């Protein structure tokens, strides 16, 4: 029973990070119909910026703010300079550009920050809370992850639901031409959307790094998990991305916790889950469209 509680808690915490990453993918997909395979490298880049600040003696919180801000700038610049020329064109070209960015950024990180494993601090304790004499796998840092992801999501909901910029961003995402005819500066909204998505992606990179090790490719598996979570949710739906992230987090945690030598099976399980979802419900669980044009 105690193991079940622990595995579930671990799964939910991991799932929230996947959810945040998936949300970043969904935000970009909705506005520009591009799956940003470079999201992981971008998040790795901003995490290394944070690490450099922490190693230089600054506080975690300052590093967090600078890292998220640099994520915004990075996302915005990438949209303007690299993505804009392939937007709305052949989808294969856009995929290849995103992949090129993925490889180039990762290599650049290795050149600037080195390829070795470096430990990344967690802002809060990593020892589980004591509940009824038992120590559970829920740490102060897990609580921080919960808080950070939930607050970020609430802020995004507020932005999209209740502000004029949010309305303009949604309109631009759904119908670029109509929005332009209505005087909405669609280009600016897309840039803003990429910037915000990169902030969310950066946050997930920082959260997963906390208390562990970082190296240039440390986000590779998170790209897979985030993508699978986004697909489970339908790729179009922010709510779907969050639910998809939680489902995936729990599923992988149960596999890792209960299957013999399960930790080696985690990535391949994500692949199996992805395949099952795509075959049974190609549109994901939350998509408004039922079929993908093959």
């Amino acid at each position, binding site marked *: 029973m105690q193991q079940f509680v622990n595995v579930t808690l671990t799964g939910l915490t991991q799932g929230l990070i996947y959810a945040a990453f998936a949300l970043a993918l969904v935000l970009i997909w909705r506005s520009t119909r591009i799956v940003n395979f470079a999201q992981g490298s971008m998040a790795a880049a901003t995490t290394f910026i944070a690490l450099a600040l922490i190693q230089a003696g600054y506080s975690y919180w300052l590093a967090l703010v600078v890292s998220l801000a640099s994520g915004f700038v990075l996302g915005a610049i990438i949209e303007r300079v690299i993505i804009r020329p392939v937007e709305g064109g052949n989808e294969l070209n856009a995929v290849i550009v995103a992949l090129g960015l993925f490889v*180039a950024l990762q290599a*650049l990180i290795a050149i600037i920050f080195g390829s070795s494993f470096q430990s990344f601090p967690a802002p809060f304790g990593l020892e589980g809370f004591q509940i009824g004499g038992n120590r559970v796998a829920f740490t102060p840092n897990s609580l921080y992850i919960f808080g950070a992801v939930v607050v970020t999501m609430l802020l995004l909901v507020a932005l999209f639901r209740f502000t004029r910029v949010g309305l303009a961003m949604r309109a631009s995402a759904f119908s670029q031409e109509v929005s332009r005819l209505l005087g909405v500066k669609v280009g600016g909204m897309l840039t803003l959307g990429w910037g915000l998505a990169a902030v969310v992606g950066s946050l997930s990179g920082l959260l997963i790094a906390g208390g562990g090790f970082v190296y240039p490719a440390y986000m590779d598996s998170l790209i897979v998990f985030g993508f699978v979570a986004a697909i489970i949710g339908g790729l179009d739906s922010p709510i779907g991305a969050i639910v998809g992230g939680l489902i995936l987090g729990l599923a992988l945690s149960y596999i890792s916790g209960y299957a013999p030598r399960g930790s080696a099976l985690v990535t391949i399980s994500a692949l199996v889950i*992805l395949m099952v979802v795509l075959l049974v419900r190609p549109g994901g669980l939350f998509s408004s469209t039922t079929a993908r044009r093959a």
Partner: protein
Amino acid sequence: MSDLQNSPSTAGQVTDEAPVAATAAANAPSAAATTGRTLLPQSTLLRHLVLLLLGAVAAVVILEITDPFTNSQLATLSFYAIAAGGLTVLTGMNGQISLGHGALMAVGAYTTALLLQEPDGALPLPLILLISVVMATVVGALVGVAAARLHGPYLAGATLALAVGLPGLAIYFHDFLGGEQGLRVRAPRAPESFESFIGLVSGANATSTKWLAYVGAICLLITYFLLANLVRSRIGRTWRAIRDQDVAAELAGINLGAWRVLAFVVSAAAAGLAGSVLALVVRLAAPSGFTLVLSLSLLTAIVIGGLGSLLGALLGSALLVFLPPWVTDRGIDFGLNNTEAAQLAPFVYGVVLIVAMIFAPGGFVGTVRLRWMTQKAKRAAAARAAAGSSGG
């Protein structure tokens, strides 16, 4: 789109050009018919056979005039080019993307490694290569069935998961597949006939490096011969129809799913063979050899070369082999240390992918071909104008 236009002189230049052009001969024919003027036979199959022969001669010449180190580089080139050739069929001709071909290569490589664990009782090499191809084909068919329903980013994501996830199986089945360390491959010795053949041709030492380079070259030539014929066949035309006009093709009664699966199966077979050759050449099958970067490198090769062109796939593969040492050296010249400089190659790949897609989506071959055709059109127009003025 299709192969580089093959002027009659290409075949003659083969021997003085870089190794790249040598095997290009095996693939170049497919477009020759369109030029109308060619020394090669009109029949596609016959033309491909002639070029296969020329390619074989060129391969022997190149492997005999280059040093052992270049021999091993060429062996590496052969497995990249085999895999890239298969990927070209999938991505360039059928419009499906795959980031999972590194994983399919792993299937071929591990199969070969397992079959060679007992060197004395091992099966004959051609049979081992064939079984590796079959294994990768089976896995490819499974993936292909799922992939046929997907497109663009969905397919990219699913195959990305394959590339990241499949090597994990080697760690899970630690006892059988050797875990992180992988399986050592005991490459079979060269047969005596090979030694006497080399003795006859150049009198050089018939080392095992040389033998493996020949195995790679033979596999490459056969693969490209088969692919070139396939591309020129009804099957190839159907693939292109699906890529360019999927709705129209479907209305014409073409079962899109089945054809997409077939494309995946063909490219998986090529990846399996490539993996098998890789295992022989590198003498190791380990998860670290089949990272996402391998899959992305293959994609880079076909994009740089020009999507859909076998010659382009070959040129792109050559770049994968010969660019990294050059770039790394430049990095060290500029004061980077070794590990930093080693990252310059993937950095260049990434930048090249982006720049190619933004400025020259046709890739190298596509761009050259466009130039060539534009000039041809200009010449034709000039000729018409001249004829017109003299006639009137």
